[in-house]
Each structure stands twice: as C-alpha cells, then as structure tokens.
C-alpha cells in the first residue's frame, strides 16, 4: 500500500537527517546540519502525506478512520510529532545541534514501526468514538514534547561536565550553552505537561462514556498517572525549589523513561484494557 511506502521513505529520511546532524557535530561542519534541516522538512512533508494517504486508503477499504489506532500507526504518529516539535524548536532557538539528539529518537521509532504489522485493520467497537481523536492527539503531542526534553537533557549532561571542567573541546564543545539547554528542558515540559493532562482527561472522559468508569487503575491509566506525577514533581522542584541543571535533567530523562513505559511497556509487557494498542 502506498502509505506504507511513504512511511518507509520517511524512515530513510529520518535516518539520513540523524546521520547529517551527527555528522555535523563530528566533522564540525554546519553545512551538514543545514542540509539535515531540509531533510527534516522533506520528511515532515512526506510523513504528513503518508498519514493523509493512509487515512484516505482506509476510506477506500470501507473502514474510514483516523490513522492513530494501533501500534504501527501510533509509532509513526509519535515520530511525526517529534519531527514537527523538533523543527519548531530548531527554528525558535536557531541551533541545529539538537537534531543529533532528537532526530535519532524519531528514526528508531520508525525502525521499530517497520517491524510491526502495517496493515489497515477495522476498528473494534471499543475504539469507535470521537474521543479517540482528542485522546490520541493530545497524548502524543505530550509524548513528543517529553522526548525533545529528554534529548536536550542528555545534551545538558554532556555539556555540563565540560563546562565544569572549563574546557570546550570536541563534539560537545559545539553544543549550545548549558543555560539554553537547561531552559529548553523546562520549556519542552511545560508544553508537554498540559497536553499530557488533557490526554489523561480525554481518556477518562472516553472511558466513562464507554465503560461507565472514568478511572479504574488499569495499568495504562496508572502509568500515565506515574508520568504525570514525575513531571509534576519536576515542575515543583524547578519552580519553587530552584532545581536547575543536572538534577532537573536527570528528572526529565526519568520522566521520559516512564513515558516510554506508559506508551510501549504497558502494551508489550503488561496487560489491560489498552491491549488493542499492542497489536
């Protein structure tokens, strides 16, 4: 199917972009990362088209539904969100070194997606709801923001070690200053947090409409709460207790690990109401 071909092309583009950003750091050549930006823009166009085509193809098959309903689709949608979120950050902060740390997340997500079933399956009755759109989109914007934050937090940890030693050599020397990285770790989270909150709320509203209970401590719900609590702790530590730098970066990475567990771990390792997401 043509949407899968386009998604495969997207995977290649994400790979090329990651290589270019990493290459730019390694060779200390801005040209590579400038080219990387264009590859990311192209990947954004191709993957958006792929989502559109997949949506259209589902209608042709007589199923007709938004392409965010199984593991394959959620993975490509996550990668799509990360790429867009990254492009916004790159433009706003006018710094291309982030790409080396963020685009590989999008790339490996797509590689993982390729190993999953990519066929368009009809919706089981439980998923036939308008809440699906609001729930999935808000969650994934949140996840993408947390991914960007964790990528930048990793950059921060590398950079901070050098700044402390008062040296600026090698690849790490090219990274933006610690202050900027630290700020971005926080900023990505204040975008992600309201979206995650909205994602949990729309999920609760949907569960209430489908099952008559808005919260049932199912593993997926519980893990989304765990993610929410970790970032709530981050925000309190940051805003009222002045946690900056290393501790904030570590907490951001911990939050993202919890996010990955919530998103993938629950479906692949645990069982529960969201079992259809693991298909």
């Amino acid at each position: 199917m043509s949407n899968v071909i386009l998604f495969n092309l997207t995977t290649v583009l994400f790979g090329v972009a990651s290589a270019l950003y990493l290459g730019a750091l390694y060779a200390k050549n801005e040209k590579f990362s400038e080219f990387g930006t264009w590859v990311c823009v192209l990947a954004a166009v191709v993957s958006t088209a792929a989502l559109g085509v997949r949506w259209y193809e589902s209608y042709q098959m007589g199923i007709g539904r938004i392409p965010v309903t199984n593991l394959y689709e959620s993975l490509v949608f996550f990668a799509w969100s990360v790429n867009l979120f990254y492009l916004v950050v790159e433009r706003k902060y006018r710094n291309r070194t982030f790409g080396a740390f963020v685009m590989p997340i999008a790339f490996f997500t797509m590689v993982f997606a390729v190993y999953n079933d990519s066929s368009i399956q009809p919706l089981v009755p439980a998923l036939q709801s308008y809440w699906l759109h609001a729930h999935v989109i808000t969650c994934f914007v949140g996840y993408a923001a947390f991914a960007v934050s964790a990528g930048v937090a990793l950059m921060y940890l590398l950079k901070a070690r050098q700044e402390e030693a008062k040296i600026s050599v090698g690849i790490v020397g090219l990274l933006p200053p610690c202050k900027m990285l630290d700020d971005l770790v926080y900023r990505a989270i204040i975008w992600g947090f309201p979206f995650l909150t909205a994602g949990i709320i729309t999920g609760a509203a949907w569960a209430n409409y489908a099952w008559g209970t808005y919260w049932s401590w199912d593993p997926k719900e519980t893990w989304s709460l765990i993610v929410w609590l970790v970032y709530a702790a981050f925000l309190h530590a940051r805003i009222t207790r002045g946690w900056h730098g290393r501790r904030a970066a570590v907490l951001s990475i911990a939050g993202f690990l919890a996010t990955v567990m919530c998103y993938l771990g629950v479906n692949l390792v645990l069982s529960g109401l969201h079992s259809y997401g693991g298909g």
Partner: protein
Amino acid sequence: MVDEKRTLSPMDRVWNFFTSVKLAIVTLIVLSVTSIIGTIIEQNQPPEKYHKIYEDWAFALMDRINLFDMYHSIWFLFILVLFTVNLSCCTIDRFPKMLKVVRNPRTKLDGSLEKTLSLSDRWKRKGPLSEWAVKYGDALTASFAKPKVTGDGGEVHLYAETGVASRFGVYVTHLSIVIIFIGAIVGNVLGFKGYVNIPEGESVTQVPVRGGIRIQDLGFTVRCNAFSLETYPSGQPKAYKSDLSVIDGGRETVRKTIVVNDPLQYKGIWFYQSSYGQAGGATAKVAVSRKDGAPMSALALAANEPVPIDGYGTVRGVNYDQNFRGNGPALQVVVEKPGKPAASFWLFQASPDLDRQRNDSLFFSFGGLSSKMFTGLQVAKDPGVNIVWVGCALMVIGLIMAFFLSHQRVWVRLAQGTDGRVEVVLAGSASRNRLAFEKRFEKLQAGVKAAGQ
C-alpha cells in the same frame, strides 16, 4: 536560623511540615513509585490465581499489606490524603499572601525595586513633568496597559501590568485536584457500579453491585428486546447492539439501541454495552397451524424438550440438519399423542406447507433455528462525575494560566532633575518567559521614548 527554629511552637512546626514544597515533591515521587507495584502485580484477581504464582508465605504477606488491591488500601489512601492535605495547606498558606501582592502592587519604582529589575532604561526630557507623565501614560495605554498614576513629592510614578491571572494559575490547578477528589468521593458514596446479563426478551429491575453482595434496585425495569452482532466482511466484530426498553410506571418510557461508546441513560443511571453471549442452547422456531391453514401458535423447541399442545399431545425437536438430503435446513420432530405410538418426521424450512400432506389435525412448519443471546451491561450511577469534569476543566485552564500567561509589569518614574530637565526611568519585569518579554520591552521602550517627540 538555628535559634529561630528552636523557638518555633510545635503547632508551627506541624504547619511548616504540611506547607512545605519538599513534602509535595516527596509525596509525588512516593505516589509514582508505589503506583508501579499495582501495574506489575495484577490487581483484584481470584486468590487461586495468586497461589499459582506466589509461595504461601509471600501470598500471606502481600495479602496482608493489600498488594492485590493496593489502590484501595489504607496505606495508599493515606498517601493520597497526605498529598491532598499538603496541597490544601500550601494553598491556604500562600494564596492570601499572593492576593495581597496582586491587590497592592508596588506601584512606585523606588531605588531598591529598580535594582532588582534587569530591564530598564533612563533618559531626560525638557518641559513640564506633568505633560510628560500624560504623554507616557497614553503611550503605555496604547501599547501595553492603562497605567496607575501616583504622585509622590516631586515625582510621578506610572505602573501598568498584564497577565496578572498567571499568578492564579497554580491555585486554580491545585483547587482542581481537590475538586476531582471531592467528585470521586461523592461518586463512591452516593453512586454504584454494577453488572448485569439480560437474555433477549427478558427484563431486570435489580442489578448486582460490583465487588459486593449488595443488590441495587433500579426503581424501573429494563428489558432487552434483542441483541445483535455485526461483523466486518473479514469476520472481525464491527458492532455489538442491544435494543433496550425502559419500563417505568407500567409503560415503556424510553427505547434505545445501545452500542459500545453510546450508552443509555435513565434517571441518572447509565447502561453501557459491555459483553454478550449465548443464553442457553439454540431453539427451533416451529409454527403450529390447523388443517385449514389457520395459524394456532408459535413454539420454540429446545433440543429434546417435549412441548405440550393442548388437546393434541407433545412435540419434541430431536435432530437438526443444515442440509437434509439436499433440501436445505430441516428439523426432525417427534410427536407423541396419548395412547398412540410416537411419530417421527422431518420439517423442511424451505417448504413450510409440506407437512400438510401428513394426515393429522395439526401441521407444523419449521422457521429456522434461533439462538437466544444475552447482553452484558455495565450499570453505573455516579452523581460525582460532573464534579470531576468541572475539576478536569479547571485543571487545564489552571495549567494554561500558569504556564502560558506571564505577569508582566512596567514602571515609569518621572522626577525633576537638578538640571531642570525631567529624568525618566522605564523598567519592567515578567514572571515567566523573560526572553519573550525582553522583545516586548524593547518595542515598548522605543514606543514610549518616541512619544511626544
């Protein structure tokens, strides 16, 4: 510091404990870490299942600390209560202070305040001070907000602010959590959750409550008229449909076909499509008619169950063939009349009149097999749910206020300089997103400076 701590009364210490953000962070982390347990140990399973996984001593220990239903355990509840108390105390402690600051802002830019502001500019102008004050006031109104003007000795102070709501964001968010908990408690105390199976054509007036022995009276009757299952061409389930009727006060008041994600609501009680199944074995539909063709009755024959017909005898379905001798679906029945030998014959679904040829007072037509289904419904009443939604809406609003609004303040001080000119100082600050404010301040600075030139 040490002395001060020693002089604190026990009451103050308790208060300080409950109003500390440190406690909030610790509680958040403890809640998140303990919550993991219940996602690894499957909750609320039958004991036999746990016995298969765990040794007896481990089972006893885990059962004792409620690890098999940990989210409803006393200790987990305790952490949630601690969390809520902490949150409420923080709000009670800080909200009045914040309100005071917001109500009585520092409208005068004095030296000590000026020192704390990173964004400032100063210049001098010829002419009367009061005229410049008006000009700058208008400039601020046009490009920022209407300033508050205060005079103090020979000086005039202008103060303008925007986005003051951002200061309330955190309190709205905290309040929303308390409201959600209140909603959850109301739902738990005043509501119920149950589950019921209703076979097609049957009714219920009561529902067994989930996780208990209590039976909940509905106060009306719910009848399942029919259940149907739709599939996609591939055979995957497409829709589960239950045709339900509500009978209240002896008449049908509501009739609705519910599917998953589209429940029925009556008098605050919701019915959700949840499950389905076959109610008993299949039955054969058999129409009974008189010799002259006048229909008499319709029977539903269960396998090998004799059904009596008044003044006639009994009829019993004994065999079914999907394609009997190439003539399609057929039912074998046995008719027994008192004092006569049993007669056995086949009825063909495709030829309903064929049985007339049999010389008897009644004849039978086979109308096909019907498997009676039951629908499984979740039944819930939750008077707290709307309180929860109010809390949820407030939470999103609070977060947007806290993270995307910024309390921006601008001061202008005009003073008569020793050289006869007016000395002007412009300064500003923002509660968050200082980068964006810097840009705004630069524009404002240019605008104000150019005013009246």
